[in-house]
């Protein structure tokens, strides 16, 4: 459900999604390397797994210390299922960059980690013919679950939630170099058409992800009967470029912002971003409860 519709639906002009959230100590099932500095950690957390939807995130916090003090928001990569096909836990993919992720890379099966979620709004579930997902670097993490659901592979969240459906799902995935390319087999196994590009040409086409996107949009423009929507996540400047391209071409576009967060649940007011209001003025909105997914045209870049 996109944040715009909820704003219309309630008089206070704010969305709120932590209505599914719970806090729990989750056991680590595995923590495996996918690419250079990139890992997938699997948590056992059935109640969280049952509720979480594509584009939502959870907060993860290492137990037993006060440095790093705060939890970190990490996107849902996928849920994993038990033998009977019921959600048993969640997978999160992370890149080692700083205090928390460098320690997370050390955790082992059987260790326990504190988590709360699911949080945030998630991507729109409005049906579309062609879903184009655009990822920069570790920004690819929300798109496995999104693409899987769009193609009918798995429905996420509570039964009351409407799943997303699309005829086609393409992932334009830009990386700096081949060493950082992660999870492509997962995406392809889910039926997603993956178009890789890299800054140095070490994998896929050499160049920016926006070039691949531009070509896809050109192609789509020849078939006006096909509806297209872009979902984008990555470095801010890349999201800004994608947003401008989408607006220029008149294509619907959602971006998932990675604003720094201290709580993830709406109580600290640190994660604000300038969001354009229906009257054209901007206002600071909390990414964790009003987002992280916003319509690209709402963001004051």
């Amino acid at each position, binding site marked *: 459900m996109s944040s715009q519709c909820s704003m219309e639906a309630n*008089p206070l002009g*704010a969305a709120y999604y932590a*209505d599914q959230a719970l806090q729990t*100590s989750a056991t680590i099932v595995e923590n495996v390397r996918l690419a250079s500095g990139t890992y997938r950690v699997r948590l056992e957390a059935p109640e969280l797994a049952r509720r979480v939807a594509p584009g939502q995130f959870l907060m993860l916090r290492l137990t037993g210390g006060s440095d790093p003090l*705060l939890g970190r928001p990490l996107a849902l990569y996928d849920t994993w299922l038990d033998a009977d096909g019921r959600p048993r836990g969640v997978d999160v993919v992370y890149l080692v960059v700083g*205090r928390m992720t460098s320690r997370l890379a050390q955790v082992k099966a059987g260790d326990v980690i504190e988590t709360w979620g699911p949080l945030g709004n998630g991507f729109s579930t409005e049906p579309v013919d062609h879903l184009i997902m655009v990822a920069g670097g570790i920004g690819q993490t929300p798109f496995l679950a999104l693409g899987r659901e769009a193609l009918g592979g798995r429905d996420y969240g509570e039964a009351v939630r409407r799943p997303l459906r699309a005829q086609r799902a393409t992932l334009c995935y830009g990386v700096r170099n081949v060493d950082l390319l992660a999870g492509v087999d997962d995406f392809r196994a889910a039926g997603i058409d993956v178009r890789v590009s890299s800054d140095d040409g070490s994998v896929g086409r050499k160049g920016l992800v926006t070039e691949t996107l531009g070509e896809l949009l050109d192609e789509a423009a020849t078939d006006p009967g096909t509806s297209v929507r872009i979902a984008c996540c990555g470095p801010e400047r890349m999201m800004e470029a994608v947003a401008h391209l989408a607006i220029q071409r008149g294509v619907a576009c959602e971006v998932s912002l990675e604003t720094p967060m201290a709580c993830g649940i709406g109580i*600290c007011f640190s994660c604000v971003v300038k969001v354009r*209001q229906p009257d054209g*003025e901007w206002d600071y909105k909390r990414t964790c409860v009003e987002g992280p997914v916003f319509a690209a045209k709402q963001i004051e870049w």
Partner: protein
Amino acid sequence: MARARRFHAPVAHGKARRLDSQGCCRHAPFEPSATRYPLSLAPPTSPAAPEIDLRITLGRLTLPNPILVASGTFGYAREMERLVDLSRLGGILPKTVTREARPGNAPWRTVETPSGMLNSIGLDNDGIDAFVEHHLPYLAARGAPIIVSIAGRTAEEFVEMSAMVGDAAGAAAVELNISCPNVSHGVDFGVNGVLCEKLVAACRAACRLPIIAKLTPNVTSIAEIAKAAEAGGADAISLINTCQGMAVDWRRQRPILGNVIGGLSGPAIKPIALRCVYQAAQAVTTPLIGIGGIASVDDVMEFIVAGASAVQLGTVNFYNPTVSMAVLDALPAAIATLGATGVAEVVGSLQLKRN
């Protein structure tokens, strides 16, 4: 500049929830089974533990227990209703409200530091009119005492807002935030004893509710300001607000916070807060509310023994959202450990001489 603010309240949304007539949300009840507390915390009181009286009195204000949540660290409580049984809290302090809406400071607004965090939120809020209309009715129906935190730019604004909160139904007390380091004039009344006393007295005269003064640690003598608040007639004194601090990105040669300087909170400031509570307890008889780095029942007990009648949990809500419930579960056993039957008995029970 942003225009006047929209209301920040998160409200019920979508299929899973329905709005009732007051715009409040109904949901499935709190599920303690789904929520596990940190292993370091004691399990809920055993049935064998004696009845412990958790009630405390702060001047004209009586609270069901001493575990409160601090202003600015609990949103407007709606955000927490799924994670915490709000009705169990000894008191809820919603985010400080100002006379007019304020957009708050530019990002970055927070940065993590060793065992703490710096913030420069800048009193981002929708203004007192919106607060009284949209937040207070919701808060008042949660079953916990609501202590409304206000900050004025001038004494007149403080007095006017105290009166407004007193006139509106639903609040149990007013906390004067005379200690916000992130807005200009935010601390004038918290660093000058004469101004502090006059302000507290004027607010007390204008408002039927108990008045609490919240002090900043960024002063030469906390005892002096506490005495001034007492002389002004404060029902209780909260301490401390954040300690001023700063973070620098030397590679970019820039401050990290958008506002350059911010307020430090979290476990890193607990010793400073304990020292302030202890010094204030020596100087005044007005009841104290301890704040600063409290993260566990052990921390709560340290503040109570040092002289606090109640405590507020702050930053810990960010990194352990259900902590208030865990602390409440563990508190009776901790009191019993000291051989006491009520919280009030152990307040300020610090032994200074070795026997």
